[in-house]
């Protein structure tokens, strides 16, 4: 049994999904966090729940929204679970009407019933259910109230056959619907003909594509034009879409008039007051920058670094000593001991040390998403983003990109304009992700002890400024715009639940831990072997190892950037796997027993200036393997994938050479 979970953005859809399936998905309080359809198994194991992206209507504007329509068109659905925000009933019911026209058994989760009550809105859910001919269950998805009842109702639906909701769209349109459905084959496993016809006349491109499989497109277009003309002269409506919207809107109005009792109208007063400050004319942008600064302070100075230091002490001290003791007791050979302690523990441990900082950063990003501030940031940034050929929404994938570029690039699906979306996809890798953070942390600890947060912030800003500059460049040359587009819903502010924040932090951060256990582990072994072996045999001196030879090839090219040694070359090469591998490689190459020794050793190979140049290069040089894969998938184009790799390399080289050579001219070396 497949149950499709559909609803407007920001209605608590993902919370409900988590409650019903027991597993956890990523929840965020800004439009479009669910970028792909996600499947979970119901707690009673009776069926699968498919979490579709939030949509206002089945007629999609963005690729993200298309996922939901596509699902209804081509996949096998038994039941639709429609989550509805009770405090926004009128708008939410618009989607419900379209889903009821689709004709599958529908269960409505009337969510945020508590918020609605607080606003003085009373809903007669029994009457609503009777009128719509579906099951309605009042719930509070955030606390789980009513969700058990809802789950029970879902299981009851299995055997039900539902007649689709039929509204009267007026003589001309009804006639055209009849004509179109008559053209459809009866035996095929298609969605209901009336629903297809209505969606087609509303201008749904995905439905049109499907219909052309059965009906010649010239016939379709002829019918469309003829009907549009007839409907316009009959109803004086501006377009067929307007007419259809109006009919549904009138039906909803009549429904609300009998089912809803609006006692008093309190409009978002708290949200208003918060917005007065956060989107203030003068203070809006500075406040955002202050939040960004606080985020970095918390991550590095106040909480993250002390925990990371403690963890480092544990790994290099207690853990290494204990392991060494066991290995000796077990009679392990010198080779095995070296492999485990200098290869795996140094390599993986070097990355694990940064887990606290990364989790704190993810926690803060989750907080911004869940609170509703993210949508405001998009709005505050829109003017700046528009001037470089993007829109405010493009800023959100970029912020998520600070955590990890992969979900950031996927979040770009909510951008409606294809060119703006492509531009966002290829520029998001310039956002400094948490993996790169590990490299910064290592270097700032060694070379910029006094100004750690400031140096790191400067790298983040460098990424942002370059992304904005390149956006302007690309959008006025190779990616010239059609008309730009920006409409964003500003959800009311909510205080995020601590439990939700913790889970969503773990969801985002677990990939990082998994990477440490898999290919950073494997990479560490390989890198260590390459340092242990050389043309002269095993256990060679590090400078005569295979890794030194490989890195040595790159050294002359890197020389003008200030880090022309084989160690840097080797670290950069391995960093393509994942940027944090750079740290593993350095730990192994410099054979440092702990973080502080490593930072001391590095002082022999880098000056503060060349270290900064190296960090800039790390920030920009090439998106990591996983990011390249997701760019390929999201753009569907090898050309644009290559483009994003090559432009990054070129920019990295130029920026680093300017930093290093410029710095030398200024006498900073």
């Amino acid at each position, binding site marked *: 049994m497949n149950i499709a979970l559909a609803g407007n953005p920001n209605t608590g859809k993902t919370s409900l999904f988590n409650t019903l399936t027991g597993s956890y998905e990523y929840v965020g309080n800004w439009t479009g966090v669910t970028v792909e359809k996600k499947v979970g198994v119901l707690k009673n194991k009776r069926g699968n729940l498919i979490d579709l992206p939030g949509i206002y209507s089945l007629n999609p*504007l963005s690729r993200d929204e298309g996922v939901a329509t596509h699902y209804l068109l081509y996949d096998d659905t038994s039941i639709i679970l429609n989550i509805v925000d009770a405090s*926004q009933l009128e708008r939410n019911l618009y989607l419900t009407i379209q889903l009821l026209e689709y004709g599958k058994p529908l269960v409505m989760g009337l969510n945020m019933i508590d918020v609605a009550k607080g606003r003085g809105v009373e809903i007669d859910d029994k009457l609503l259910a009777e009128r719509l001919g579906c099951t309605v269950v009042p719930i509070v998805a955030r606390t789980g109230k009513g969700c058990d009842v809802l789950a029970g109702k879902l299981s009851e639906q299995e055997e039900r056959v539902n007649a689709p909701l039929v509204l009267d769209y007026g003589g001309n349109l009804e006639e055209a619907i009849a004509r179109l459905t008559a053209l459809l084959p009866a035996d095929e496993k298609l969605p209901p003909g009336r629903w297809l016809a209505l969606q087609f006349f509303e201008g749904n491109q995905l439905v049109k594509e499907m219909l052309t499989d059965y009906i010649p497109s010239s016939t379709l277009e002829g019918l469309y034009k003829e009907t549009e003309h007839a409907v316009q002269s009959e109803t004086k409506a501006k377009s067929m879409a*307007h007419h259809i919207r109006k009919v549904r809107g009138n039906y909803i109005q009549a429904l609300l008039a009998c089912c809803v009792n609006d006692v008093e109208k309190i409009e978002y007063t708290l*949200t208003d007051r918060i917005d007065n400050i956060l989107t203030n004319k003068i203070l809006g942008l500075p406040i955002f920058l202050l939040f960004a600064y606080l985020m970095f302070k918390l991550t590095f100075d106040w909480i993250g670094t002390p925990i990371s230091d403690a963890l480092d002490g544990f790994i290099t001290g207690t853990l290494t000593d204990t392991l060494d003791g066991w290995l000796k007791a077990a009679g392990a050979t010198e080779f095995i001991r070296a492999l485990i302690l200098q290869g795996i523990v140094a390599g993986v441990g070097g990355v694990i040390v940064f887990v606290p900082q990364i989790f704190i950063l993810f926690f803060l990003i989750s907080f911004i998403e869940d609170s509703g501030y993210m949508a405001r940031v*998009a709005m505050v940034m829109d003017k700046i983003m*528009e001037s470089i050929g993007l829109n405010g929404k493009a800023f959100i994938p970029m912020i998520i990109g600070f955590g990890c570029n992969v979900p950031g690039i996927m979040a770009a699906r909510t951008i409606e304009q294809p060119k703006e979306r492509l531009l966002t996809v290829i520029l998001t890798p310039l956002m400094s992700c948490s993996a790169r953070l590990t490299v910064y942390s290592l270097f700032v600890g060694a070379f910029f002890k006094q100004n750690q947060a400031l140096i790191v912030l400067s790298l983040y800003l460098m990424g942002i400024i370059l992304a904005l500059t390149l956006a302007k460049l690309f959008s006025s040359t190779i990616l010239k715009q059609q008309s730009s*587009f*920006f*409409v*964003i819903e500003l959800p009311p502010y909510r205080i995020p639940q601590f439990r939700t924040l913790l889970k969503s932090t773990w969801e985002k951060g677990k990939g990082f831990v998994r990477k440490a256990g898999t290919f950073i582990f494997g990479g560490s072994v390989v890198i260590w072997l390459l340092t242990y072996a050389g043309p002269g045999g095993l256990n060679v001196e590090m400078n005569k190892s295979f890794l030194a030879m490989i890195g040595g090839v790159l050294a002359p090219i890197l020389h003008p950037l200030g880090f022309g040694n084989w160690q840097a070359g080797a670290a950069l090469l391995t960093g393509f796997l994942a940027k944090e591998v750079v740290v593993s490689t350095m730990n192994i190459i410099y054979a440092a027993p702990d973080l502080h020794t490593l930072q001391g050793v590095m002082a022999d190979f880098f000056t503060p200036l060349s270290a900064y140049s190296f960090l800039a290069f790390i920030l920009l040089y090439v998106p990591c393997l996983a990011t390249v894969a997701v760019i390929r998938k999201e753009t569907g184009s090898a050309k644009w994938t290559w483009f994003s790799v090559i432009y990054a390399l070129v920019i990295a080289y130029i920026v680093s050479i300017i930093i290093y050579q410029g710095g030398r001219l200024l006498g900073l070396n």
Partner: protein
Amino acid sequence: MTLTDLHAGGKARIINTGQINELVQRRLLDLGIMEGSVVSIKRILPLGGPVAVEAKGQLIGIRRREAKMIQVEMA
């Protein structure tokens, strides 16, 4: 008059959205904002930035340029 002629807090009824970009029009239609809807301006961002419009209890951000093309009358 147009939507941008309103002060923050001002209310008006939409009489024509025909001039704005078709995609914006469709999204507004999805949100139930069309001819006949009563809207109010909640916030105006500086330097020609977006405006926050309230309609039917929801808060929507749109660009100033689009707001300028929405014709309204006093409600």
